[in-house]
């Protein structure tokens, strides 16, 4: 027993064992490191990256500016300024939609809260930047990201078509309001 212990001590068997593992990985094992910028992992289903805006198949935006995402957001990173669509009277849209990605915790509550499925979690995670301001995204940026990751778009529902026809008719008639005067 003592002899075995002694011989191991003399011949640095622990080092040899350790070096063995090193040699094995060095020459025989497949590399685990991914060549990240050149090679990318496939993400699991349901991965929650940056939140994006979606469009219907006729390229109109889905968002109606209801601010429910803002209400649901636990980190207060969403700001919605709703208003009337300047091109379509009586239609509610988000005049401004600001997502502060620096604050976002990617919980996806906003996606669940959205009543018209206008929001989605994209697989986008490469948001590192030297300019923090570029992480405060507006609606256009979010729509562009949505276009990139969600090319298959939902069909505009029928009830919306009906209302659209109504909107168009109303637009023709003209609906003067006190508000237009206020904004003018």
């Amino acid at each position, binding site marked *: 027993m003592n002899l075995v212990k002694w011989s191991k001590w003399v011949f640095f068997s622990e080092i040899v064992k350790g070096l063995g593992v090193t040699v094995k990985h060095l020459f025989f094992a497949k590399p685990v490191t991914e060549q990240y910028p050149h090679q990318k992992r496939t993400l699991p289903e349901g991965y929650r990256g940056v939140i994006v805006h979606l469009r219907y198949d006729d390229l109109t935006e889905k968002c109606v500016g*209801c601010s429910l995402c803002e209400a649901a957001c636990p980190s207060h990173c969403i700001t919605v300024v*709703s208003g009337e669509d300047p091109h379509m009277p009586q239609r*509610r849209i988000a005049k401004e939609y600001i997502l502060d990605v620096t604050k976002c915790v990617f919980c996806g509550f906003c996606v669940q809260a959205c009543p018209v499925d206008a929001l989605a979690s994209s697989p986008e995670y490469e948001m590192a930047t030297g300019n923090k301001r570029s992480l405060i995204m507006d609606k256009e940026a979010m729509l562009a990201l949505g276009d990139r990751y969600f090319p298959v778009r939902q069909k505009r529902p029928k009830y919306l078509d009906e209302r659209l026809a*109504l909107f168009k008719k*109303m637009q023709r008639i003209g609906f003067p*309001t006190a508000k237009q005067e206020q904004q003018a």
Partner: protein
Amino acid sequence: MAGFVHLTIDGQGIEVESGTPLIEAAKQAGAEIAHFCYHPKLKPDANCRMCLVEIEKMPKLQTSCSTPAAEGMVVHTASNRVKQAQEGVMSFLLGNHPLDCPECDQGGECQLQDFAHQHSPTLSPFSEEKRVFDKEYFGPLIEKEMNRCVSCLRCVRYCDEVLDVNALGSIDRGTMTQIGGFAHHELDCEFCGGCIQICPVGALTSRLSMYDYRPWQVKKTETICNYCGDGCELTLESINNTVVRTSSKLGTGRNTGDLCVRGFFGYGAIGHKDRLTRPMIRRGNHRLQITWKGAVESAVAALKKIVETHGPGSVGGVISAHCTNEEIYLFQKLLRQGIGTPHVDSSTRYGYVNAITGLHKVFGTTRLARYEDVVGADVLLVFAGEMTETNPIAALKVKEAVRKHNATLIAVDAYTKQSDPFRSHLPRLAKYHLQILQGAESLAIVGLTKALLENPVLSEGDFSPLFLEQVTKSVALFSFEEIHAATGISQEAFSQAAAAYAGATRGVLIFGRAITGSEEGYINVVRLAHLAILAKQVGRPGTGILALASENNAYGAIAMGGLPEYLPGFSPANGAGYTLPGMLDACERGEIKALYLVGENPLRSLPQKNVQAALSKLDLLICQDLFLSETAAIAHVVFPAVSFAEKEGRFTNQEGEVQRVRKAVEPVGNAKTDLEIFSMMGAAIASSSAAGVPAVSFDYANSEAVWREIMATVPDGFHTDSAEAVSQHVAVYAQQAIELAPPVVISKRRNPDEFDLQVGQALFHSGRMSTYASGLTTLLSSAIVLMHPSDSDRMGVEEGEQVTLRAGSGTVCLPVKTSLKVQPGTLFVPEHFSLDVKRLLPLAFDPTTGVPYSTRGRVTVSKQKIS
């Protein structure tokens, strides 16, 4: 009066007043019953069937809104049977309700949403398509989305029962029942916004704030409206320092949750783009923007120079009665103590001062009647036919008294009994309507007093013989025939009205600008006070006199010493200070060298006088305003002030009720509150004052500190207003000699082209400020002339056509609008836009109070010739 009954609700014993609807009793017992058509302000209608409850020993479920609580009732509000019934009702309602909650402005404060969460079944039994209404244009301010309507008819009933306007009705039948103006036309009503506030769902919403907010985003600030003297509590709802909506919570404030068009749609002036944001000084013909420090220093240096060379009496100051009590107090302190001038006046000089000084002389107080007295009165004598336009919420109290409590209304005014469609009008509700000729108010009061004195039953009472003799002498100058000829009212009508007023158990007298702002204003107030004393309708609980104010803090301006007659707390001022017209005369004479105007624009409000020349003679004109007014444009120093939504303080309404004003948004730009500006000015004056002159402190942390000082300064607090004190004061007054000038008889119109012109306030505006609110300018954006259809037919003028008003050498062209309420032979022009029309009218001054009267006159009207 009413007894109490005991009943059991959900196993809990409770005692309520008999006659209480079960739904209210349940609320007291802590059980909220779902409802849509029930509203505490309205009579029960029981049309939504949502508030069904089970009452033991009653075979069927009962609607709790229309079932009064009775002794020994055992009520179940949440039994299985009730739940099943409510789920049934709810599934019918939801069967037609669109799922557009995310887009709907009501989403988040919707009763249907709330009750659906509690009472709806998970699945709908219906597979039919939802009903869809064609979208209709309903006007620029109110948005109608009938798909969301639950047909509770609250809006229709509110419009009828509370407003007495009847602009809304229910049209069509069955599931396609919808709310609207008759024959689907565009809404043209008083636009009080009550239907929007009372709608339980999003069927009626505000077009002005459409899609601008979600209810949970807004910061709510309860403050007081600044558009008239009613003193309504208003909730300003703001997002990011912008007011997006106003509302008023049910049952709060003097208005108990009702608002008028100015309160509901008039918030656009607060954040208007034309607001002044930086102090300015004039250099030659240019206005330069400057820092606060520089502006205050240059103003104080110039003031000091003037005081040194011409004495403190060469400085005058006028403050608007739109400012808070604290600001008016500080302003008069700045002038009286900081500078040492007695020349302090306020915009109450345009009429309200008549009411206060007159009533004060007779009764020792002006707090004689409150809205509760108006609502509870059994006879109302109203000398304000335009009350529904000038003071809409006080008029609601009159309507409530007449329509809910069957009070007798005696209306004395120069309007016809008819009203325009979808507008309320007090003479229409009057039992006795004395339609006098324009300008004949004084003779009408004399007629009423005379009729009262001649009625042996009513005039008896323990009046002092001197008082009775003097009043009798003052009315004996005219016979009833002469009064009939001058007013158009017969002796019989006077006798009936006088008998009704004097025979009242609780009689309240109301008068407005027709009395205070027109010729003989002060004397007429005293005459009315005599009338009330003779009729014994003052000095008893429930009786009294209410003087209507057109400015939100008119009462406060006088109570805070904002006029030369009184120091704070109505203590008489010694030394002769000039009134506003007197100050302008002194400016012209070169006696006053510096004028400090706060929110005042004499170039606009006194156009006939040579104000321009008077102001141009000044060495220093300081203007403190929200907008660059005509006067501010020629001022040497302009300070940007803030609106009522941006400051803290207190307003006193026309009843004498002191109410808190709270800050809803931050001041625009570099504007400062008037309080801060006065403090800065005061501190600069105190620091630069010569040695030996005791410095007055202007160091206040906030408005609260000023208020504490006011409370400590005012001798014995405010004057008492108890019935005994009033009676005592009247007894003393009755022993004095009363001098009243005889009433002036207005000459008759000579030819049919001559018209009596009245310039006054329109419903949709208040002063100049409201003309900056886009919601209100949509309704009325420029001056018009109201004419009776019979006159326009006679002259061959159509609605919208221009007519020329001529008086002396001046002419004004205005478009005609026909109105049934103006008398034939009279015209009405709103005062808010056109400066020129006031130039046509003669200017007179009250001999006692110096109030300038320039709202009435006679003009000839001719049709515009097209060449």
